[in-house]
């Protein structure tokens, strides 16, 4: 069944990729806007006089970008471009390609998002399990209300509050950016420290909020598992309380947590985009923000497509690992 399951999941992934590309292609065209003409007109206005040759230029660019061909040909060209991960030039920063600009931003986002997701998921799951353990210290109960309250706050809102408290009021952390303005990016220890210092506040605003969610979900699952017959049976057998806790309760409660992680990735990413904007963190979110400001359609489309595909891949990977965590899934016949 295993190969079947993976094949099906891969099919879903392909559908996601195709949908993302198709939305990307058709939605902007539905609005009847002409990004190239708009950009040229805006530049002509900046220059202070109306260029006489503007129509000829629009024609020339339309030719170049293939915008004068029939829609279905454009669609096919677009699909083949996208399948080779070629997103064309950035409109606002013309000689630079979308790929170049994304290549600079992606490591920042992957670093920030990867670390924070792992941290909040593991801390949250651990905390949630402890919260449901009858033998946990009493003071842990006091953790619940703040976790609940934090969980309801959007990432970026907490980010704003943290910047004000820890960067503006008390000058502990830098307010803005991914590294100091004067620093020269390179593989030195000094630069790594600088980057770390700049990433603490954005990371904190994600981890503090997300941890609460994972802890609450884990606690809920733990409470349900603790009522199961096999746990009562294990108690009746006289197994050690720690063994019951770890091997009977946590082991089972962790499964839905992993499924939830696959589903939550998209939401976490949406939230992280705004955190980057608030902190001016040089990742994909900020790049997207700048692209929106400059009406750079190709860049926006490139980013949205890449991110959706990357997340689809991450979900696919999580699903592929899932049978390893839950041995039952391999035998189940659908």
């Amino acid at each position, binding site marked *: 069944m295993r190969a079947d399951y993976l094949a099906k999941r891969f099919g*879903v992934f392909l*559908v*996601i990729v195709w*949908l*993302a590309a198709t*939305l*990307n292609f058709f*939605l*902007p065209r*539905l*609005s009847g*806007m002409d990004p190239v003409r708009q950009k040229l007109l805006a530049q002509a206005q900046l220059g202070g006089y109306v260029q006489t040759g503007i129509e000829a230029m629009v024609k020339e660019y339309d030719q170049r970008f293939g915008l004068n061909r029939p829609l279905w040909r454009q669609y096919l060209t677009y699909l083949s471009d996208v399948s080779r991960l070629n997103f064309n030039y950035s409109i606002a920063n013309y000689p630079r390609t979308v790929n170049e600009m994304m290549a600079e931003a992606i490591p920042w986002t992957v670093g920030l998002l990867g670390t924070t997701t792992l941290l909040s998921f593991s801390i949250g799951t651990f905390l949630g399990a402890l919260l449901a353990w009858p033998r946990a210290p009493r003071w842990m109960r006091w953790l619940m209300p703040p976790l*609940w*309250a934090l*969980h*309801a*706050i*959007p990432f*970026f*809102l907490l980010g*704003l*509050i943290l*910047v*004000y408290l820890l960067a*503006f009021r008390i000058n502990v952390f830098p*307010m*803005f950016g991914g590294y100091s303005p004067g620093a020269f990016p390179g593989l030195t220890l000094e630069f790594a420290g600088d980057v770390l210092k700049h990433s603490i506040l954005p990371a904190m605003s994600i981890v503090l909020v997300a941890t609460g969610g994972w802890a609450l979900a884990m*606690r*809920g699952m733990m*409470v*349900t598992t603790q009522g199961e017959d096999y746990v009562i049976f294990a108690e009746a057998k006289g197994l050690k309380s720690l063994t019951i806790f770890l091997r009977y309760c946590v082991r089972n409660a962790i499964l839905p947590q992993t499924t939830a992680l*696959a*589903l939550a*990735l*998209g*939401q976490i*990413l*949406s*939230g992280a*985009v*705004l955190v980057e*904007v*608030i902190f001016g963190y040089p990742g994909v979110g900020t790049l*997207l*923000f700048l692209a*929106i*400001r400059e*009406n750079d*359609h190709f860049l*926006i*489309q490139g*980013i*949205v497509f890449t*991110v*959706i595909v990357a*997340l*689809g891949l991450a*979900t696919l990977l999580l699903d592929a690992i899932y049978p390893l965590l839950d041995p039952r899934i391999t035998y189940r016949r659908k």
Partner: protein
Amino acid sequence: MRRNISLVIGIVLLSGLVLFVGIGHIVVDTSKARALSAPAMKPPSLQYPFGTDRQGRDLLAVMVAGTPLTLRIGFIAGFLGVGIGAILGFVSAYYRGKVDTVIRGIADIGLTVPGLLVLIIIAVSIKEGLTVDQMAIIVASLAWLNPTRTIRAQVLSLRERGYVEVARLSGMSGPEIIFKEMMPNLLPYLAATLVNAVSNAILASIGLEVLGLGPIESPTLGMTLYWVNYNAALINGWWWWWTAPIVIILIVFLGLFFLTVGLDEIANPRLRRAG
């Protein structure tokens, strides 16, 4: 009711907000929420209790005028989302078969895609002169995914119950069973789903607005945060500019969150033991 602290906290927070807006609309002149209607960059004073921003808006008036706009986006999108979600969820789970496969497939695939990014593509495509209601409809275009999925799961377990079986055997039609037998039993659950959907819609709309894709002319909470970010109010120490919107947004989210938890407890008595 006395046991359900979450519900009480939620209701208190939200009615406080409604009172603020209601009294505000009587006392405060909301036309001051437009730019250039007050002196710029004044810290809070007797005349301007929340201060004024850089474009000369009275921030108290902005909050009084903007809070209902943001809530309006949330409610329109939330109602549309849960409405569509309920129809799809009921149809999908009650009739099963090919319809179910298609609806469930679409909802499952849609949910793995980061919603904000799809909304960005939609909003960018129709950027010119967005209104508050258009904004709500954009947000609603994805708001039905989650309700569809959760309501479907609830209906699936409900349709195996004895009383549904009896209704079916006594010759009730599908729609009749759905509306007369299942819907009343799911009402508390639908309410919790609705509150949750409203909260998600508000979050999505604020997200779009902070990115600069909102209704530029309207003084919604998200647009206020956009101007805060645009003018770097944080770095310049203009604390009054962002304090008011942040506090109100916090109250909105916390209120809606506690309301959902409270309604969940009513809808799902098993949770009461856990709490």
